[in-house]
C-alpha cells in the first residue's frame, strides 16, 4: 500500500517523500506513480526527496527503474531537493543517478518540465 500522497498539477504528478521508506513501501510508491501516470496521462513526475536523509543503492535503483518505466509510458521523472550529504554519499559510493535529472527545488523542477512540455507541444 502506497503511503505517499501524489498530487497532480498541470499535467504533472508531484510527490514528496516525507518519511523513511522500507523496501516494500518504496516499491508500492513506485507502482502507485506508474498507475497514476498511466491513468491521468501525465507528462512529468516530480519527486521531492528533501526529507530523505539516506538514499542507498536500493532506493537509487527504485528511482532509476521508475525513470525508465515512466519513459516507456512517454513521460519524464525528475527529482528535487537532494540533500548535500546524500549527493556526496552517492558520489562516494560510485553511483551517479545518470538517467535522472535533478533540481534544486520544486520551483526549478516545475519550471523546467512545463517549459519543456510547452516546447514539445509546439514541435
Amino acid at each position: 500500500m502506497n503511503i505517499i500522497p501524489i498530487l497532480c498539477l498541470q499535467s504533472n504528478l508531484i510527490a514528496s517523500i516525507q518519511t523513511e521508506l522500507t523496501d516494500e513501501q518504496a516499491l508500492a510508491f513506485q507502482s502507485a506513480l506508474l498507475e497514476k501516470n498511466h491513468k491521468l496521462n501525465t507528462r512529468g513526475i516530480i519527486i521531492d526527496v528533501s526529507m530523505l536523509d539516506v538514499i542507498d543503492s536500493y532506493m537509487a535503483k527504485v528511482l532509476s527503474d521508475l525513470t525508465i518505466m515512466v519513459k516507456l509510458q512517454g513521460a519524464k521523472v525528475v527529482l528535487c531537493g537532494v540533500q548535500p550529504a546524500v549527493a556526496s554519499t552517492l558520489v562516494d559510493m560510485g553511483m551517479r543517478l545518470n538517467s535522472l535529472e535533478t533540481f534544486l527545488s520544486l520551483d526549478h523542477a516545475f519550471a523546467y518540465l512545463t517549459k519543456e512540455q510547452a516546447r514539445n507541444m509546439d514541435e
Partner: protein
Amino acid sequence: MTNYQEINALIEQYKSDVINNWVDEVILNINSPRATEEQDCQQLLELINQCLIEAPNQTFSSTAFKQLEQALRSFSAFRALNDYTPTQTANYLLLLKKVIYELLFEKYPETSARLLIDFNNFIDKVAVLSFQYYSESREEVVSSQAYALEHDTPIVKISKDILLMPLMGIIDTVKAQKIIEGLLESIVENQATMAILDMTAVPTFDTHVANNILKTIVAAKMVGTQVILSGISTNAALTIVKLGVDLSHVETFNTLENAIAYGYNKTHTKITQE
C-alpha cells in the same frame, strides 16, 4: 553495613528505585528526554556497582574500573558536545551519591562512618574524572571552532543564482572534504543554480585535488547545480591532461571574468549600469 560488597548488594536489590530516583533528580535541572538520561544512568550505575565488588583492595585498578573510565569518557563527551552546562554534568554523580545515601540511611542507619567516608571518596573520584573528561571535550570543541573560523574557504554570492568560491592555497584531502561539504550546503541554502570554482590561487594541482574537484562537480550536479571552473593556470592544465582527469563535460574558463560572464548569461541575470 560494613563493607562495599554489602552496598553493592543493596543497590542490586533496589536497582530500579535507585535509577528512578536518580533520573528524577537529574532531569529536574536538565531539559532532555527521560529515555536518554535513563539509558546512560543505567549503564553508569551498572559499572559503578561492578567496581564495588572489587573494592576496597582493587577499586581503582580493576577491569571494572577501566570499563567505568571508558564509559565516563563517552558519557562526558556527549554532555560536552551537546551543550550540557558544567553544573549539569557535575551534578550527575553528586545526585547519585545523594540517592544512594538516602537508601543507606533508610535501610541501614547504623552504617559505619569509616565505610561511608571511603565510599564517599570513591564516588567523588569518579565525579572528578567525569568532569575532567567533560572539560577536555569542551576545550576541543572550542579550539576546533576557532580553527574553522580562521581556515574556512569563503563563498561569495555574486547574483541571485550564482555562487563564487575562490579556492586558495594547498588543498589536502581533509580540506577538500570540507570544501565540498561547505559548497554543497551553501548551494542548497542559497538555491544557486550555478557555482564558480576559481582556481587562480591554487599553486599545485595533483591527483587528489583533481579528483576532489571532479567529485564536487558531480555531487553538485546531483543537487541540481552546474559547477564551472575558472583560473586554470598553464601548469594546472598540463597536470590535468597528464593525470588523465576527464573534465570534458565541464565548462572551464581562463579567467574569472569570463566565467562570470558565462554565468550571468546562462542564468539570465541582467546587469544595469548607471
